[in-house]
């Protein structure tokens, strides 16, 4: 069952290598996403049975359930799936580039940069449209990534220096964000605080569209670059020997990784730890193979959907932002990761 196996076709003569376990895991994850998605649509203050949910999506439900499913819950759940997938992919890219599970965008300052830029756009520029917000977040994330990488560079970048410099830069960026918050009106500040913990409350179609469009570009780009990424994990020299244009591939990967994280941050806020946790879970599910991109994206979507479900229903009628749930689950995982790395003596 585990390990790759080759599939050969006689006519047209071709063969592909299929990792059976990875395919099976991806299938299960897709099923899990579908299930969680359906539950997310039907559960709430106004429960709607699954049959009626399907009817509403197809366009012949009652007026009430039509409104709730199609204007409220469907875009919210879609945002969860897209944002989770984007964070998962971005985390997989950064973790495999730095070869360090801690080097995920939420720890090395990429999401902090995106968040600071987005809050600045809201508070100082009065920006309201979600496309402009996404652009600001992208610029902020890229700038933060550049600064962190530049400061960590010293005859090459080692994983731990990158992480520590990222922690320092994150401190500066989050204090910028807090300063902007104290300048804001209390109403804006409260909204922004919810946004800053990462929230899916009130996400409508206008939030789905920019993420969807960005993912439609970035996901294929990432998958194309995925080949080079696997080669880069063998080390620069080996990758060069395999014919990979190392510098260009790395630049492309960083840009797509930052893009994914920034777009996701722009639409749901800096949801903590999804980017850190998803690739690691995916790796444990798929087996010892290098970080897979597709499983990481799927796990990210599952994590977001489940966390949102828990946040909505656990303290009902109070809705906790999804970021609180992911942080409370993700941070102990990070601690455990550190403890394990320390015990086997790889901890810096």
């Amino acid at each position, binding site marked *: 069952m585990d390990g790759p196996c080759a599939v050969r076709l006689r006519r047209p003569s071709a063969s592909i290598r299929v990792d059976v376990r990875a395919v099976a895991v991806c299938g299960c994850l897709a099923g899990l996403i579908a299930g969680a998605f359906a539950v997310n649509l039907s559960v709430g203050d106004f429960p709607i049975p699954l049959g009626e949910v399907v009817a509403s999506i197809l366009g012949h439900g009652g007026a009430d359930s039509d409104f709730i499913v199609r204007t409220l819950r469907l875009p919210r759940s879609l945002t969860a799936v897209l944002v989770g997938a984007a964070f998962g992919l971005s985390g997989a890219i950064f973790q495999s580039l730095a070869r360090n599970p801690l080097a995920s965008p939420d720890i090395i300052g990429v999401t902090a940069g995106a968040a600071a830029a987005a809050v600045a756009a809201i508070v100082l520029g009065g920006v309201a449209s979600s496309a402009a917000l996404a652009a600001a977040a992208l610029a902020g994330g890229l700038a933060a990534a550049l600064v962190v990488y530049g400061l960590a560079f010293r005859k090459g970048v080692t994983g731990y220096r990158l992480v520590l410099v990222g922690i320092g830069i994150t401190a500066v960026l989050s*204090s910028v964000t807090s300063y902007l918050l104290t300048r804001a009106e209390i109403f804006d500040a409260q909204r922004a605080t919810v946004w800053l913990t990462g929230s899916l409350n009130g996400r409508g179609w206008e939030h789905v569209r920019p993420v969807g469009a960005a993912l439609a570009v970035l996901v294929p780009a990432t998958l194309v670059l995925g080949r080079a990424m696997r080669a880069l994990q063998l080390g620069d020299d080996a990758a060069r020997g395999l014919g990979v244009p190392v510098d260009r591939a790395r630049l492309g990967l960083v840009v797509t990784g930052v893009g994914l994280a920034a777009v996701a941050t722009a639409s749901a806020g800096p949801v903590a730890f999804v980017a850190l946790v998803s690739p690691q879970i995916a790796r444990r599910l798929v087996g010892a193979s290098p970080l897979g991109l597709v499983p990481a994206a799927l796990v990210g979507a599952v994590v977001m959907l489940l966390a949102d479900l828990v946040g909505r229903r656990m303290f009902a009628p109070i809705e906790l932002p999804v970021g609180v749930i992911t942080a409370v689950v993700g941070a102990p995982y990070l601690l455990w990761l550190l403890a394990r790395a320390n015990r086997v003596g790889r901890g810096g």
Partner: protein
Amino acid sequence: MVPPWTRLERMERKGVVASRRWRAAGLVLAAAALVAVALASVAYGSKPIAVNRVLGSFFTFDGSSDHLIVRSLRVPRTLAGLGVGVALGMAGAVMQGVTRNPLADPGILGVNAGASLAVVLAIYGLDVTSPSGYVWFAFLGAAGASVVVYGLGSLGRDGATPVKLALAGAAMSALLGSVTTAILLLDVATLDQFRFWVVGSLAGRDATILRGVAPFLGAGALLALGSARSLNTLSLGDDVARSLGQRVGLARVCAAVAVVVLTGAAVAAAGPIGFIGLTVPHVARAITGPDYRWVLPYSAVLAPILLLGSDIAGRVVARPGELQVGIVTAFVGAPFFVALVRRRKLAEL
């Protein structure tokens, strides 16, 4: 051309001021600078008040609005800055000494986050409102966070290396911070108050807060000064310290209690303020060399200079509003942290 960081490293090893008499003179000079900064902190603000009016309000109080501002607003705030600065500077120095870690700081190692979570819990869950009530919770939180971070960072054969401790602290801060946010979001009414408290601020600290935490600040400072000798022996390594007759475990516990008391009191008074405890001991060590009997007093004098200076800068830069002091210290301290990390080897102290 020697890179500046190598130069700092050399200075920290020997100290620029070698003789004991000059070190004492330097300490007096620093104290004079502190008095000047404190006076400036009383005089500057959204309503500037001339220094002679400030002095007049102490000696010939006439009830005018200037004198009232000085007495009821500016002086308590400045005193709070003094107390918190002393506490953070000494806590940072003791932490760096006892963990032999150049990156140690109550903010980076998660102690601040633990104390603030405990304070928020006490206010939200138990309706404790006075600082003298929640200072105990701040101690509990600080102690819990330090134990977990140190335990996590010292797993493994090579013990608590600087990098492992810093990572454990960052992870712990993330965890505790998100729980704090969750509680604040459940109770929206307190958010307005807390968005100013959480960044670390000296604004609106009246005399009762300071009076509540002052005994703890004093006790912590005495304990820290008392453990200076044992920090010196601990810096030689546990084995050498033991062979010199040092009771290593006892010394560690004393130092840890000092850190917890100082940090807890500082957080209870002003909220979590980062990076003061990181930067100041390095500067002190560059002046005096590694002897903690000098590093600790210097840190205690230099830290409030930095804190009050940041507070004044925050008031001047963002006029007519103000920048919370925790934000300013992050801007000053984080580049210092990055520079420390960029050093070729994170040498243990």
